[in-house]
């Protein structure tokens, strides 16, 4: 009987540790801006879904392209209809991992500078990227931040000649995630 009890406890511990390493958010934030001499076009999205496994460093993001909100009137329509073709390619995803995950110590609250690498899929085109990120460990939550630059031509986004001076060739992307332990 003692054996059984011991077995039970062992399994419990296993589950507890396995479950705790996975973090999740549904309200992650992505901001991007296209800057030209003529006009700045920027957009926010607060509906980014993401998983993050703190043990393995595995990281995954998904977002619906149509849920970006622009501060400039009419930009949203052009973004979805002409540039991103959101009906054809509704979501953008990222699958990757934190390279130097072993540097992050869950028990030591603080800020860690790390590198993230993985596959970014936009408009059905997948590209491997490597970007710097900042991970902050606090009591029971983990937040992650990253800023990087994307070249829109890499994702086959075509800008009509007449508006070429209004849309930047490269956009700056800010990612800001506040994770909580994942509960089923």
């Amino acid at each position, binding site marked *: 009987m003692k054996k059984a009890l011991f077995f039970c406890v062992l399994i419990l511990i296993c*589950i507890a540790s396995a479950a705790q390493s996975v973090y999740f958010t549904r309200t992650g934030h992505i901001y991007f801006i296209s800057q030209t001499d003529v006009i700045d076009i920027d957009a926010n999205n607060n509906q980014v*879904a993401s998983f993050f496994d703190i043990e393995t460093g595995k990281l995954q993001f998904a977002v619906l392209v149509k849920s970006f909100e622009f501060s400039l*009137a009419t930009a*949203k*329509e052009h973004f979805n209809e002409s540039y991103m073709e959101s009906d054809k390619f509704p979501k953008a995803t990222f699958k990757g991992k934190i390279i130097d995950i072993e540097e992050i110590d869950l028990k030591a609250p603080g800020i860690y500078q790390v590198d993230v690498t993985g596959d970014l899929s936009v408009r059905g085109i997948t590209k491997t990227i490597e970007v710097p990120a900042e991970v902050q460990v606090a009591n029971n939550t983990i937040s992650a931040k990253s800023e990087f630059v994307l070249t829109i031509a890499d994702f086959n986004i075509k800008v009509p000649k007449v508006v070429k001076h209004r849309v930047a060739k490269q956009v700056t992307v800010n990612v800001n995630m506040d994770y909580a332990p994942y509960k089923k």
Partner: protein
Amino acid sequence: MSIWIKIFFRIFVVIILSCYASIAQEDDWDTLLDQELEKTKIIETAAFKSSRVLNGLSIENLPEKGLDLRIAHRFAEFNTTENNFLGLDEASTYFGFYYGITDRINVGIARATYNQTNYGFAKYALLRQSSGKKNIPLTLVLTSSVSYTSKKYSEQKRDKDFNSRFDYTYQLLIGRKFSDRISLQLAPTMVHRNLVETKEENNDLFALGIGGRFLITKRVAFNVEYYWVLNNVARYGYDFYDPVALGFDIQIGSHVFQLMVTNVAAMTENKFVGETTSNFFDGDIRFGFNISQIFSLGKTKD
């Protein structure tokens, strides 16, 4: 005692197995993320490319702080006379400004040469087609417009009758974007005219409008619009006809050009619903266009 422990143990194993089942699912992040994305709140936009299907208002609203400068012409009928360059020698013209107070509330003012009309409208989106958290299959828009005829009447008493110069139009636009290519709208319409020309005519006109678009390429759409006017009667023996329009939207940047063939000469609802004198199906067809240039007046809050 040991029986109780056995039962306890069995329950425990079941609980653990179910826990493991859920942990196994956690590994399938693709599926879980897709499930999450289904809850993303999305409001459909761009059911039509412009605030007007062709002649009548569409369910499409300008976004907040969007300003739409509109210039429109309807030329004479192709078949009026021999030497009028397919009707292009004469035109009824219209220019106006539409503005998005919020994404839901739009207003507009315009001047039309037809009867020298001053025109204003307000539009309110009661419901907007959405998916995700809330699933709303339709867009419902209430519109109300007022037209003031400023032309001079030769008869003194008629000319001085201020109230008689006003017409009002109310519409409920019921629309849906069925796919990225196909959108349709129904427009139950009531036009109230303070004064009508003859005793036989009705002050209140009822009509049902139907409009649709088919997106051919990203920047070109084909539109159709028809208003079925239910209770119009002839004036001095001349019949009125239902407004019909077929045309293309061509979008270049923030410009939309709407090129059409129609039997409508006036560009305000009260006149084109109530006083269309050309019979489309008898060849009384005009060329017409709307030009729309949208500006952004500042940025919206996040």
